[in-house]
């Protein structure tokens, strides 16, 4: 039986939301995947006789549903966005060729069929043992014998991703020779500022977390501050005088009023999706006005010293000149023709500067 190949029609389409003065963004390629019914029912028909029947759920006829699949530019991350999420839907992801890992970002609970395709090493055994590992621990009942077919080894398993604990690193292992892995998780935030945000005692500070707008919009945002190992949620409800959260789709802002030095530390923001919350952190550092005042005063002193030195030097030189001038005759007159080579300097009369 043949492994059907899925064809993907790639259409590029992007709605322009931002019109900035300085950047007319080129149309970024976005993949809209329309998986039609025949393709999807494949997973129930494609059971290879040499592999264990894995699919227990997809025997039901599944109807046509549109699925939007976005792929990152380097093709290592795919985000699955179902329009009508149903736990009985099964999606399929394939790793083959050069890519040895794939980030799969999920929003909702879903069944995933993960497939690894390996072309084998130099001496291709007719059959090889393959198994799956989740986060380092072997998945139960996942050991199967994989047969070499058309110069390829195929290892497929369907996993039910129902909640956060089902997310993680799923590695398919071919014998002891080769591994590929899928990282399943909620959409991750990039653009993490590694330097702390600096603010001053008594001042207001705004901490921002941003999710890439190409990725799906979070349902909501939450903010936490860690006290040791405890997670303490911050919201306008807990302390309305000090904290104000503004959630705006892909961006969230935490406004902290009247900061003090105790407020320094890591603030964790979480983008909440159906499946899980993806977290990142921002560091806040609170200092007093004394900190910048030190370089300010030191540079001020340096400037004053330099200015005083220059003026004093000039004063002393002019006094010396005066002393000289009062001695010999003042302003001896010399008539000299002034001719210059470059540019033909023009002068009509004689000048003499006191040296």
């Amino acid at each position, binding site marked *: 039986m043949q492994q059907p190949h899925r064809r993907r029609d790639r259409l590029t389409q992007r709605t322009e939301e931002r*019109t900035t*003065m*300085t*950047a*007319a*963004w*080129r149309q970024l390629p976005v993949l809209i995947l329309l998986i039609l019914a025949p393709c999807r029912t494949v997973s129930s028909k494609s059971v290879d006789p040499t592999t264990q029947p894995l699919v227990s759920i997809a025997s039901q006829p599944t109807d046509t549903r549109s699925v939007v699949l976005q792929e990152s530019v380097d093709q290592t991350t795919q985000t699955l966005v179902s329009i009508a999420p149903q736990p009985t839907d099964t999606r399929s992801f394939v790793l083959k060729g050069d890519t040895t890992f794939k980030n799969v970002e999920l929003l909702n609970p879903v069944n995933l069929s993960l497939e690894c395709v390996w072309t084998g090493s130099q001496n291709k055994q007719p059959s090889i043992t393959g198994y799956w590992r989740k986060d380092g621990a072997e998945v139960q009942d996942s050991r199967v014998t994989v047969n070499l077919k058309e110069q390829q080894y195929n290892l497929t398993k369907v996993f039910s991703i129902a909640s956060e604990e089902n997310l993680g690193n799923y590695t398919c292992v071919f014998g002891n020779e080769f591994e590929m892995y899928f990282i399943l998780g909620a959409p991750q935030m990039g653009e993490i500022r590694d*330097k702390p*945000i*600096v*603010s*001053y005692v008594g*001042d*207001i*500070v*705004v901490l*921002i977390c941003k999710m890439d707008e190409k990725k799906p919009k979070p349902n909501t945002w939450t903010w936490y501050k860690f006290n040791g190992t405890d997670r303490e949620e911050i919201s306008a409800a807990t302390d309305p005088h000090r904290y104000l959260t503004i959630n705006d789709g892909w961006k969230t*802002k935490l406004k902290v009023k009247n900061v003090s030095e105790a407020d320094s530390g890591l603030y964790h923001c979480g983008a909440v999706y159906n499946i899980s919350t993806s977290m990142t952190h921002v560091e806040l550092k609170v*200092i007093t*006005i004394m*900190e*910048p*005042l030190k*370089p*300010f*005063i030191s*540079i*001020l002193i340096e*400037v004053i010293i*330099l*200015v005083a030195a*220059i*003026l004093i030097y*000039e004063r002393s030189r*002019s006094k010396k*000149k*005066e002393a000289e001038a009062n001695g010999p005759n003042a*302003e001896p*007159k010399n*008539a000299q*023709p*002034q*001719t*210059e*080579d*470059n*540019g*033909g*300097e*023009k*002068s*009509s*009369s*004689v*000048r*003499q*500067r*006191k040296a």
Partner: protein
Amino acid sequence: MPPAAATNLGYKPPDGGWGWAVVFAAFISIGFSYAFPKSLTIYFKEIQEYFSVSYSEIAWVSSVMLASMYAGGPVSSMLVNRYGSRPVVMVGGLMVCTGMVLASFGTTIIHLYLCVGVIGGFGLAFNLQPALTIIGTYFQVKRPLANGLAMTGSPVVLSTLAPLNQFLFDSFGWRGSFLVLGSIVLNCCVAGALMRPVNKKAQSQPDNESPMSRGKASVEAASEDFSSPSANPLAEDIKNKSKCQSFVSRYIDLSLFTHRGFLIYLVGNVVMFFGFFAPIVFLAPYAKHQGTDEYSAALLLSIFALVDMFIRPVTGFIGNSKWIRPRIQYFFSFAVSYNGVCHLLCPLASGYGGLVVYAVFFGLAFGMLCALLFEVLMDLVGAHRFSSAVGLVTIIECGPVLLGPPISGALVDTFGDYKYMYYACGVFMLGPGIFLFIMHYYNYKKLDEEHRQRVTVEMRTSEEAVEFKMNPNEKTDNETQGETF
């Protein structure tokens, strides 16, 4: 009858000695004036979040600062004419420092507009004009070189301030950074202290005596005496005019508007400035639009700044050579046209390599233009009227400088493509370039004519002058007569 002195400065500029210290001081002042507003943009993102305003509102801070800097030109010129360069620069440095320190404690965006924008901008204006003026008083023969060296301050200070500002921001946030920047800007006062007024000796020849007071270390306003068309500056003449007119003309020389060379320069520059800054502003976004990543796009700007930095003193040196100096106006027109050609050819650049080539050529063109920008004005109006001239020029240029980038941005937005903006900028520069070529050809011819006339007149009158030896006027191709029209 006084001789038709080309500069009629009344003294021989030292062309060296302390002049080089003054060039260094001007380097710092000019550098801060041009680089400071540009370098503040690093803080805008955080300030925007802090005050919860839109990007365009925060960008206004830069615009207000630039506008104040250009609008403060005439005020600055008047003060320089009255008090000399040194006090004005020191006051300017203090003003910017005060503005930044006040801004660091600001609580609304309006505070920033006022403190950074208005006070800071005026302070920078008080730095720019005097720095340019004092070069003219210290240098005559080597003036293009001195100007080129002083104008190098702009890219050098910008390259220094950019990473420094980033470091300050990471260490202190925006408030602390403004505070420390206030103290850094105070170094302009040091530059001001270096700007010792040039030493002018009292003249032995009576008719060359100008009513300027001759102190050992004081410079009086020169333009009030030289504003009259004839080469006979008498303060009494001015007093005889109407009071209002004399008050104004004592401080700023409005008769420049009848000066042919000045008008040519003004018209050419006003049109040129529409396309002056926009290509730099849009270089990085254009590169990103072509598909390069952010880091490479920023590298383009660094290449541009590096080339700019090195070409300015070289241009000054070339402009000083004996072949170019007499016809330096043509050199300037060439620089302007070259800029225009560069922009027109830019859309042909394909890929990152093409953009690098464009950045290099643009850096060359821009550096040449900037190095000569004020030198040719000095060449046209003479050093003694330069202070008023530059004040008038900057306030009139205020409009195109502020309108240029938004118009270009509108072009980019309407057409969705950068090439039309580059075509427009190219035209805005090529047109004035050609205009300047033609007008200066005509101007040089007229000047030679007038010079020949004056020589014959003076030959006749010199027979009457017996107390002093006077050399026949040599052919002055390099200096336009300050009093001709």
